[in-house]
């Protein structure tokens, strides 16, 4: 086994001043939406935990998740992949290719049994023996199963891995299914969105590194910290909705005054995501702020919930604090409680979130 370093050790070794290290920890707490009082705990965690190997697989996808990931502003991508985790296997960034690349995956699976994270971008086509996605001469589906076998936990990046996304839209020609339909014996965190917000992606990983456990999940296995409320409920245009002031077409006076986009088809009222709070690209904007209705890209089956410019028939739960668990008829008991990791390097116990109790829909 190779020597495993702590974050603080890595930071120090890289010449990062302690002052900067503490600042970094504060930024993480902000990105996770934590109280400043928790910063010392983050500092402690960073000083005592080693870097976790991450194997990042790509199935049927468009790589928008990776692109979003490298847009993260806190932490920045370079810190994330060089200092905080050990991103050992990723098609998009690895220097090695072909069998040298595949050897890395096999080595980590063996050397870090039960101690690595499997991150999956995209999903797996089950039709026709998986010939619609092949990697290194094997089907992506078999590769996924093989790599999940020894993983500590699985992160399903984006709507493809979480819910199926575009290739899973009707009529789903390749039989594409989300990851939890294939991997049933591991804790899975769904991080939906097309793509997910950059700081949500890095936030999910830093939550695990910092607190030693996966974030609390809702009934669709989404972290409550980032998918707890509807976009509509925190939307800065919400007062116009309540006042009944709506954009009627994209060239009217309401567009320039920032009125509500509900009548233009906005799916904010049925979409759970952090777009209206964290926003995109370091808080620069989000779709509604650019005058475009939300297309609901983090919701299961959103491609088939359209057309995008047709308004929702009804807006559920006008109350602003209704969490995802309160909407719908599903039992609250299906929610996966925060899954404990005794320490990094210890396998996370199987969470009670297997797909039988998971109401995720596809299509």
């Amino acid at each position, binding site marked *: 086994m*190779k020597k495993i370093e702590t974050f603080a050790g*890595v930071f120090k*070794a*890289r*010449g990062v001043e302690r002052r900067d290290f503490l600042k970094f920890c504060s930024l993480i707490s902000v990105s996770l939406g934590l109280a400043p009082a928790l910063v010392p705990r983050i500092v402690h965690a960073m000083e005592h935990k080693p870097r976790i*190997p991450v194997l990042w697989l*790509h199935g049927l*996808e*468009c*790589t*928008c998740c990776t*692109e979003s990931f490298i*847009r*993260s*502003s806190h932490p*920045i991508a*370079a810190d994330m992949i*060089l200092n905080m985790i050990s*991103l050992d296997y990723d098609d*998009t*960034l*690895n*220097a*090695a*290719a*072909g069998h*040298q690349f595949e*050897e890395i995956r096999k080595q980590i699976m063996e050397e870090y049994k039960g101690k690595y994270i499997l991150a999956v971008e995209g999903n797996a086509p089950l039709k*026709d*023996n998986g*010939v*619609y996605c*092949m990697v*290194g*001469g*094997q089907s992506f589906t078999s590769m996924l199963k093989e790599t999940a076998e020894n993983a500590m936990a699985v992160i399903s990046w984006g709507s493809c891995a979480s819910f199926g996304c*575009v290739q899973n*839209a009707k009529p*789903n*020609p*390749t039989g594409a299914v989300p990851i939890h339909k294939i991997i049933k014996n591991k804790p899975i965190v769904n991080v939906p969105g*097309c*793509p997910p917000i950059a700081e949500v992606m890095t936030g999910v990983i830093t939550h695990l590194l910092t607190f030693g456990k996966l974030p609390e999940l809702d009934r669709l296995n989404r972290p409550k910290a980032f998918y707890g409320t509807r976009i509509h409920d925190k939307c800065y245009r919400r007062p116009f909705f309540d006042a009944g002031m709506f954009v009627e*077409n*994209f*060239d009217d006076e309401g*567009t*320039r005054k920032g009125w509500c986009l509900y009548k233009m088809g906005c799916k904010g009222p049925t979409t759970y995501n952090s777009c209206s709070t964290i926003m*995109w*690209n*370091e808080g620069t*904007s989000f*779709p509604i702020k*650019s*005058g475009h209705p939300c*297309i609901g890209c983090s919701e299961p089956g959103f*491609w088939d919930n359209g*057309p*995008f*410019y047709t308004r929702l028939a009804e807006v559920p739960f006008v109350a602003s604090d209704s969490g995802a668990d309160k909407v719908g008829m599903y039992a609250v008991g299906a929610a996966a409680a925060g899954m404990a990791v005794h320490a990094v390097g210890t396998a996370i116990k199987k969470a009670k979130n297997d797909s039988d109790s998971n109401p995720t829909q596809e299509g």
Partner: protein
Amino acid sequence: MSKRIVVDPITRIEGHLRIEAVLDENNVIKDAYSSGTMWRGLELILKGRDPRDAWAFTQRICGVCTTVHALTSVRCVEDAIGAQIPPNARIIRNLIDVTQHTQDHLVHFYHLHALDWVDVVSALSADPKETSRIAQSLSAWPKSSPGYFKELQTRLTKFVESGQLGIFSNAYWGHKAYKLPAEVNLIAVAHYLEALDFQKEIVKIHAVFGGKNPHPNYTIGGMTCAIDPNSDNAINIQQLNMVKKIIDDTATFIDQVYIPDLIAIAGYYKGWLHGEGLGNYLSYGNFPQTADPASGLWPSGAILGKDLATIHEIDLADMGQVQEEIARSWYTYSKGDQAALHPWEGETNPKYVGPDLPYEYLDTDHKYSWLKAPRWKGNPMEVGPLARVLLQYAKQEPMIVDTVNGVLGALDVGPEALFSTLGRTAARGIECKQTAGFMSKFYNQLIDNIKAGDYQVFNNDLWDPERWPKECKGFGYTEAPRGALAHWIHIKDKKILDYQIVVPSTWNASPRDGKGQPGAYEAALANTPMEDPEQPLEVLRTIHSFDPCLACASHIMDMNGNEITTVKIV
């Protein structure tokens, strides 16, 4: 005695690509085969949907070249229904598009391509003082002190010593084909990290006008980002100032980091002029300056056999020009597998006849890819930055002529050096300098319009499908960072009847066609000598010089997608 090597997966690209190559006894590549190993079948998914939604579906073909499919799709639908967009919408779309080109090229050079030329581990033995001297001789970029490089080197050393090499694991460090001195390697590693941080700034322009990146929002009829300098809920001077600063910072980064690095690195590899390939180049043109799609700053045209004196005109509506073949692809055609079909009459009937999984080798004597083989008047063509730069060079575009001659002069090589892997990589950098300039140009056009009182970004005339013709066809095109891209649509009763796309990486990564003509990757790999066939660095160099995007290449939306249901289980 020939031997066969396989590189699968090809990393540092988008999507799933496999290369098989046959080497002679001197380890020179005799034949190469390019195989796209993924297919998503979006054509069926799009059928019957609202054409106004098509941009969002097609955008998800690719998140690396995000925006280019969305842009092409709105152009395509607007062409079909006859919609006009306001000048501001055209300018904003151009600005989003050119921002994409610039950011994409920068990311490609440092994060997808540089490690084919840069030995990260060698940087550990660099002298920081000498590194600083070299860096300062190349550029005025301020992050160039001995202390800066010393600190980076210390971090890098500890990283390597940790034994957890992450993305640099098990690569080709120490390979004989690496030629850079340790100091230049250290400069490149520094800029790899700086560019990784900076690239995220550039695309904030997408967030301003399209709400987010990746996958900013478009709409047919214009854009939705309202402009009003006197509103606190529309694009006003604060957001425009942000865009301006990003544009200025981007131009500085390209001029002071990317271009000097490109020239410095290329200087050590100018003896490695392999990878010429087809010698046929195709570009559709882009960045329209009026309502006429053909009014682009980038010209359209085709070059055959490296003959820059003859530019062939192209017509995407001509049934005899752009055609797709499937003789060596995992599809069938109802007219027989030797047919070549224009997109308007295209078919996509997937039929996998490759080896059972898992396999060691593909059957490259027969069908071996999920990519079709697009051809222009029967010719395999290369698309991308080199095609565009050559076309502009041939048409004597002053900025391109000056920059190309400047780069060739700095490297002390002749124009023939452009026809190579290195030429492809240099062309991308040259083009990036041009697109950084276009960012500023389009920004100024937008400011001039706003100043003149024109705030309109959307035209509502044909938003309502009730006002559309009962049946119509159209096409839209652009030049994506990776090359020529076009969509074709057939609308009937307000719904998508058929949708078809021919994508840059399908041109470049295509398998052989019915006549046995290789695609651009395959041709470019031929005759390349390899130092060590076990360590396929030379293959990666040439493939990466095209900037492959396989999710794009293998998506294929098609005219007769319904026949897909006849696919046999293999």
